[in-house]
């Protein structure tokens, strides 16, 4: 069989992901809602694999949420991102690892803008120098942190304590994956599998033994819509799109939703609570809602990390039904304890609790 043509065609959907020496930039939303996810990533990379991941605490928001709600101009966000590149250059790094899909989309848009409009790159260099005296280089390699976990998926499978299989029946778990619009819909070549065959999460699910659910609204937006959520009067847009998505996935009986973007994780978790409050609708089996996990949380679970150190108790939809299916022996007494073991109050009215 001739493979040359196939290789050429598929090369458009491959992504080169750096192996080591990353400059790490955090996410406003992931660090606020899923701080355990960012800490798992760093612990796994640094302590388990011995890789070099550097964080400069002076990096700030990329201003992406402001940009996509149209209160931050393009020239401004380009210069804020250029400052991040300057911090990276000053620390001697060439590979950037980004913890947020909104930021990742911003970075891809800016780098592509500079390619198409070189005068914008020059203008940004002048702006940054004038504002801060800093100079920058464009990164040689740009990865969303899920790209890095994707690259390491088989290594994680080898180290895994649990597989994405119902331990009682032996059946693979049905996993819905949601990659987030800004990961590869805008500039497909920056994403694993591009916009047509995005496999960044699907690859993890298959490597860890699960079944990827295909359903009609698989690529539909989670419903964030920036201003459509940020302003209270618009939240009907956000909720309606989430309902459309969950209604579409429900017949496929998902055991879990796996997400790429921290905003999507938050909405798909919190809107399930809202929908249940509004009209009693739940989208999982047995009257339960569907746990929504970040890829770091799922990687941590399969590797046997304590779910309460990953922060699963701080979702609105609790994950005990999933933990039971996976056969994970978790300690319920440890769930709401401080780092030094002190008992905290137990929150009421959580879902699946």
């Amino acid at each position, binding site marked *: 069989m001739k493979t040359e043509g196939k290789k050429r065609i598929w090369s458009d959907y491959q992504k080169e992901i750096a192996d080591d020496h990353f400059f790490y930039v955090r996410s406003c939303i992931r660090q606020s809602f899923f701080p355990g996810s960012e800490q798992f990533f760093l612990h796994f990379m640094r302590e388990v694999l011995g890789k070099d991941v550097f964080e400069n605490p002076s990096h700030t928001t990329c201003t992406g949420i402001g940009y996509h709600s149209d209160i931050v101009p393009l020239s*401004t966000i380009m210069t804020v991102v250029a400052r991040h590149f300057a911090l990276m250059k000053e620390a001697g790094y060439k590979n950037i690892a980004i913890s947020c899909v909104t930021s990742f989309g911003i970075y891809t848009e800016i780098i592509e803008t500079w390619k198409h409009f070189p005068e914008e790159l020059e203008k940004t260099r002048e702006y940054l120098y004038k504002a801060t005296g800093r100079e920058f280089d464009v990164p040689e390699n740009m990865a969303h942190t899920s790209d890095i976990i994707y690259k390491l998926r088989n290594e994680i499978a080898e180290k895994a304590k649990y597989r994405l299989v119902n331990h009682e029946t032996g059946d693979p778990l049905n996993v819905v994956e949601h990659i987030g619009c800004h990961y590869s819909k*805008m500039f497909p070549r920056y994403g694993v599998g591009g916009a047509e065959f995005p496999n960044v999460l699907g690859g993890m699910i298959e490597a860890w033994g699960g079944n990827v659910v295909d359903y009609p609204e698989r690529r539909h937006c989670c419903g964030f819509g920036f201003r459509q959520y940020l302003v209270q009067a618009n939240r009907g847009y956000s909720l309606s799109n989430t309902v459309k998505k969950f209604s579409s996935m429900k017949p496929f009986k998902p055991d879990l939703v796996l997400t790429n973007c921290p905003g999507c994780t938050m909405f798909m978790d919190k809107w399930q609570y809202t929908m249940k409050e509004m009209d009693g609708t739940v989208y999982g089996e047995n009257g339960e809602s569907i746990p929504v996990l970040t890829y770091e949380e799922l990687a941590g679970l399969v590797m046997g990390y304590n779910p309460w150190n990953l922060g699963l108790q701080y979702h609105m939809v609790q994950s005990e039904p999933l933990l039971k299916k996976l056969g994970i022996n978790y300690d319920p007494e440890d769930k709401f304890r401080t780092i030094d073991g002190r008992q905290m109050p137990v929150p009421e009215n959580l879902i699946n609790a």
Partner: protein
Amino acid sequence: MADYYKMLMQDVRFREGLNACMNCGICTAICPAAEFYDYDPRKIVDLVQSGNNEEIENLLKSETIWYCGECMSCKTRCPRGNTPAFVVMALRNLSQKLGFFTESEKGRQQFAIKRTVGENIFKYGYCVASYAVSPEMHLEQGPIWKYILENSNDVYERLGGQINELGAGPLRKIPDDAREELRKIFEVTGGSELFDDIEIHSKKKASEMGLEYESEGIDNEYFIEVFTANNKKHHEKS
């Protein structure tokens, strides 16, 4: 009549996002906003490419340009390589510069976004931070969010957080000099000017509407009005 088309052409997103549109409507078919609002990105692109400045002015003052959620799904699918959402972003930017945004209920909301996300950027160095997401304004966050905020230090400490403290980690305090650099970037690049434009035109509109306006914060009648007002007609087909 002002040449709005020429003004739009100064925005690289507009030049990148609008080649010849053939009105196929794929953008509308895939659009999450078109699903629930009286919204049709195909019509916007078609209108703008006509170059009719009178029509463009109407659009700049309309509810229509504020319905897009900027998911950018239209970019992937346009067979001509257009990006209707980029066209909308250029229209929104111009609408704010010219003060037209206060003519529509949805446009006026820019004031609320500036006073929340915009102010967060300068105050904290973040667009969003846990302590800036109040349960009262975000009921959908549910009881777990109230719990997290009430037990913030313990919750974040266990998960490796560095809440409001200097040094690397989730929710670390952004050093003063870094926030000062952000502020200078906004000044040099036109970010502060846009903030000022939003404030000036919103203040004027508040006066026209007979609503109290304060020079800062969210505890004023105009903020509450624009944050919550919904005439419930945005989904009805015109």
